[in-house]
């Protein structure tokens, strides 16, 4: 919570509730009232992030959905891109289409790639389809016609027809959901939007009404996948925009810290119980991608899910969290994850019957975690159980000591994360050495030092509230909307009047959204970008367009910007090859929220932050005496050399040798690695 009476942040955490997640929200509100005396009718904004939609896709719990497309292309949604995601697994399964074959209908019509109508839409065909939709008791319909990104007329007619003939059925038009070239990706996004629309609609409507009944008079805003806030109305129209609603917060917090810490390039590292995620803040901005997939058949395997080309914060996720299980594989190698012991039975140290050694068990044996202060001392855990599991499953089969096995797990997990992060950064054409790192999540600060060292990162920051950083990000995002238009032309052959026209139209659309969400449409922020590439390449780079009206004189500037970016990313350019513009995007944002992340507590002078000295195992030294500090008593200006352990309720920061630690003005832990 951001309290604008004293400009302070206040934290509180409560569990997700199943099956009705709104109960969790009300618990949170109650907790804030109890802790901080703030009642609901005083609150101006509530910002909500949700995994409801992602889970509905993973668990296939969406609505009965039909799909309408151009006749002859009904199977495009099922055929997909014809690519196996694992080349060695003969027994792989591909993700099933969200709409089965018997509910996919083709209508006679055809539009060319230039938008000309080649075959008019058949009213008779359309009529027959709406009959079938009614007969089959379908709840939602996705509509995606070939080349509709170039001319949406037929889709619009179908929309009107459905509204008249089946008013109870919700429908999604691809020209509104994702007006971009590539029929399968567009179909997939549209079908998914339809599939989750009824449930999102019901959920958000209920939440809005109930909040009002409980006295909430402010505005309910929703976090979308790209790190922007949107309105309930917009979210109900395009629920797939919320697929990555939760994790986006971490990256937005990263943007904030990049600004306050004055670090332009930041690697955000978030490690929890089952997975670790990394995202990049480059030049103060989050990296956004359109290559996103939902509902993967194999969780960590690219290509095993359904593509949704919505703007999402670009994030890698690997199966390495506190609960990840370590084992000796058939090659006699020490392997960690992706299987996780989850919360039941959990790591061996929980004593709930888990006998596999996990990352948490290793961290405990190494002395990084304190058995007396696990989750702030609220949970009893056993070092002996950890040692037993390590002995049985690793130390005996691999013929190494228990400590070596524990250190092995810690190193292997760090190595996996560093490798994944390095490839991810390279995919963006960047160099990991130019980055600083910020780490959060329960296990993030335990492993961040090791990962940073492997990446040759010199500066590591553990922000305050490291356990709730994602939620902090929610408070820092602006209300915004991105409007897109596909228009594929070579730079030299653009009709600039046409370009200015559609850019203005997109800007108007964005402004309209701000007005509807009660924002000031005069003080908006405008960002116009285009995805472009060398003609013949498959990967686009996003370039910001010059301001104001564009004309032939803009060509050189656009070219210059592209070549600069390309050179930066790949250290070379191909000056003779024509440039191609693909997707044009206009982002209209409202005012940036005026929030400062500062801890609530006052420095308690006079209390010694040094809690104790305990035996902690480091790679080079083995066990050594290491100071343990209480984070809540570390004052601004504190500075000391590593190694050290810094404990807080939700996490523990491990600092290795050859490093310098200090606490900055905002009470962040800043670590310099030599």
């Amino acid at each position: 919570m951001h309290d604008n009476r004293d400009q302070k942040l206040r934290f509180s955490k409560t569990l997700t509730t199943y099956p009705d997640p709104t109960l969790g929200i009300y618990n949170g509100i109650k907790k804030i009232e109890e802790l901080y005396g703030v009642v609901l009718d005083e609150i101006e904004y509530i910002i909500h992030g949700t995994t409801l939609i992602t889970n509905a896709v993973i668990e296939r719990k969406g609505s009965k959905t039909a799909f309408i497309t151009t006749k002859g292309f009904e199977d495009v949604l099922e055929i997909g891109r014809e690519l196996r995601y694992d080349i060695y697994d003969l027994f792989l399964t591909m993700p099933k289409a969200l709409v089965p074959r018997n509910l996919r209908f083709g209508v006679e019509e055809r539009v060319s790639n230039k938008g000309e109508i080649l075959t008019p839409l058949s009213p008779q065909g359309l009529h027959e389809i709406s009959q079938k939709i009614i007969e089959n008791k379908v709840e939602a319909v996705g509509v995606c016609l070939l080349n509709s990104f170039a001319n949406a007329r037929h889709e619009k007619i179908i929309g009107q027809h459905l509204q008249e003939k089946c008013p109870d059925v919700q429908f999604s038009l691809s020209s509104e959901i994702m007006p971009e070239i590539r029929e399968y990706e567009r179909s997939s996004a549209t079908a998914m939007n339809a599939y989750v629309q009824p449930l999102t609609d019901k959920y958000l409507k209920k939440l809005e009404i109930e909040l009002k009944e409980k006295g909430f008079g402010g505005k309910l805003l929703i976090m979308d996948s790209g790190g922007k806030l949107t309105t309930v109305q917009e979210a109900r129209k395009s629920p797939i925009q919320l697929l990555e609603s939760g994790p986006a917060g971490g990256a937005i917090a990263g943007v904030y810290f990049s600004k306050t810490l004055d670090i332009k390039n930041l690697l955000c590292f978030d490690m929890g119980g089952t997975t670790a995620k990394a995202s990049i803040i480059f030049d103060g901005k989050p990296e956004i991608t359109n290559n996103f997939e939902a509902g993967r058949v194999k969780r960590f395997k690219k290509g095993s899910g359904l593509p949704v080309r919505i703007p999402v914060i670009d994030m890698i996720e690997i199966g390495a969290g506190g609960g990840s299980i370590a084992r000796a594989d058939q090659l006699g190698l020490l392997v960690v994850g992706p299987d996780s012991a989850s919360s039941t039975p959990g790591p061996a140290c929980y004593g709930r019957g888990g006998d596999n050694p996990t990352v948490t068990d290793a961290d405990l044996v190494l002395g990084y975690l304190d058995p007396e202060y696990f989750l702030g001392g609220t949970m009893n855990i056993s070092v002996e159980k950890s040692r037993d599991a390590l002995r049985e499953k690793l130390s005996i089969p691999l013929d190494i000591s228990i400590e070596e096995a524990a250190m092995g797990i810690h190193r292997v997990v760090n190595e996996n994360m560093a490798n994944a992060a390095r490839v991810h950064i390279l995919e963006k054409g960047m160099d990991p050495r130019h980055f600083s790192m910020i780490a959060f999540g329960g296990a993030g600060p335990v492993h961040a030092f090791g990962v940073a060292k492997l990446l040759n990162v010199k500066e590591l920051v553990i922000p305050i509230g490291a356990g709730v950083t994602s939620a902090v990000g929610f408070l820092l995002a602006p209300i915004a909307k991105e409007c897109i238009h596909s228009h594929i032309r070579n730079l030299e052959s653009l009709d600039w009047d046409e370009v200015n026209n559609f850019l203005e139209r997109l800007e108007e659309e964005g402004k309209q959204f701000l007005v509807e969400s009660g924002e000031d449409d005069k003080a908006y922020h405008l960002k116009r970008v285009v995805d472009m590439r060398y003609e013949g390449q498959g990967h686009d780079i996003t370039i910001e367009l010059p301001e104001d009206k564009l004309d032939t004189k803009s060509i050189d500037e656009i070219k210059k910007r592209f070549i600069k970016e390309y050179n930066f990313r790949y250290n070379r350019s191909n000056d003779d090859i024509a440039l191609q513009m693909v997707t044009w995007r206009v982002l209209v944002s409202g005012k940036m929220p005026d929030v400062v992340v500062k801890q609530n507590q006052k420095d308690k002078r006079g209390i010694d932050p040094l809690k104790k000295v305990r035996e902690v195992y480091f790679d080079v030294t083995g066990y050594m005496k290491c100071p343990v500090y209480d984070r809540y008593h570390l004052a601004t200006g504190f500075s000391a050399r590593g190694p050290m352990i810094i404990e807080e309720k939700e996490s523990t920061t491990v600092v290795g040798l050859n490093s310098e630690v200090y606490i900055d003005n905002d009470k962040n832990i800043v670590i310099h690695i030599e």
Partner: protein
Amino acid sequence: MRSSTKIFDPVTFSILWSRLISIVDEAGTTLQRTSFSTVTRESNDFAVVLMDAEGRSIAQSSISVPSFLGVLPMLTKALLKDYFPLDQWTEGDVVMTNDPWLCAGHKPDIGIVSPIFYKKNLIGFIGTIAHSPDMGGVLWGAGSRDLYEEGLMIPPTKLIKAGEPNTTLFNILEANVRAPLQTIGDIKAQIAANDQGIKSLKKMMQENNLVELNDLADAIIEKTEQTMRDAIRSAPDGDYSYTYITDGDGKELKCTVQTKITIKGDTIHVDYEGTSGAHPLSINAVKNYTYAYTAYPIKCAFSPSVPNNDGAFYPITVTAPEGSLLNAKKPSPLGARNITGNMLHSSVFGALSQAIPEKVQADCGSACWCVVLNGMYKNKEYVEYFFLNGGYGARPGMDGESVLSFPTNVANVPIEVLENDVPILVTEKSLVDGSAGDGQWRGGLGQRFAFKNVGEEAINISILTEKTITQAKGLLGGGDGLSGDIRIIPERPFPKKGLDKLHPGEELILTLPGGAGYGNKSKRAKSKIDNDRLMKYIK
């Protein structure tokens, strides 16, 4: 072989090994991000391999295609033996070749090998192979009459010598290929990938106080070999034979792939004695290529998770008669050798189904069909490749997926992208009802893909189809898939493999074969049959 596993403790060993794989993946990422060729970037038609100073592979990029399995080490060993012995390499050298017999079996696949020097010593090599956009000659496909029509052949040559580019060679390339900027751009992308790999490897060496790679290479290769041998040892010894018939030219000249697999202890030998002779069409495979497409299905069946390095391949040997379809000699044409390579697994799995029935797959509706279109559009010459897949074969316990191939793995080009690039209108893309072979587990469905020339000029077309007169063969009682079909409207003769023109207004209708079934259909669950009927997957 030295036994060196013990030099490294298991943790350090795990970490160094995964770092090496990460290094080649990083290099692969660099290549993919900067290449022009659709097949390289969209279909992962490339490989990056890190080798020791003897040319033995230690790590291969995890997403590379099977056709390159083991090829780069074979190339590098040949370079060291016959072209550039160890003392003839200098830091900053880059050697290039597309010789099909040294490299990957046809001229578009370019091999680029760079030496790695660390502290002034040659410690290893890094190589990339990628499918280049063009190598000159006739349009790629089965239309060439001999090797010489298939474009330029570059014997192993230093493209860069101690950092100095060989401008003569660059000029020759530029003058001989279509889309020279893209072709040269891709070669540069390969060089950049090698450089990226070298940079990361040096960093790893430094951080871990290594001075050479031999001990690590020995340990990795030894471990991998041992695991592969253990997997083979668990299968019953014996000779397993299978005869497999392919389309050939799709008319009268079919081909036979005769396979005998001998499992003996911890080794597998595959003998293709009895296979047809070289074919007049350019569908002939060279030894390297035959090896790659034989070892790949064996690896998938026995030990899919063993990393790719020399050790995985020591237990597998392959022989094919000299001058045959699978061991072609000069000047047999080779351009479309993928059609043949893509069907070796059918014969390998057919034979292996007698030994390890629970680990193999029924025949797929492969090979994947290839279409190349060429002509003028928007005042520019275009060369557009696209690929179409038939049905995937059934597996014990699982139906085959529809429209998916093994062993090739090539994505389709989106219809809307195709229509933007070339003057065609796609008129249908759908599953073919009833095309899958039945069985306890049925095959996957094939697809129909039809398009019309809506431009003003004829389009040059190179086409490669397969299983139009043969079928995907069922395993262990499973049914055969339906054959494919090719039609042109208005009707006239059209080649199944080769070159022709698609005139304005003409429509080409391609129907791809379905995958085969596994096990007897009397054992199929009723609920599955009901669902297949409801979805109209079966007739």
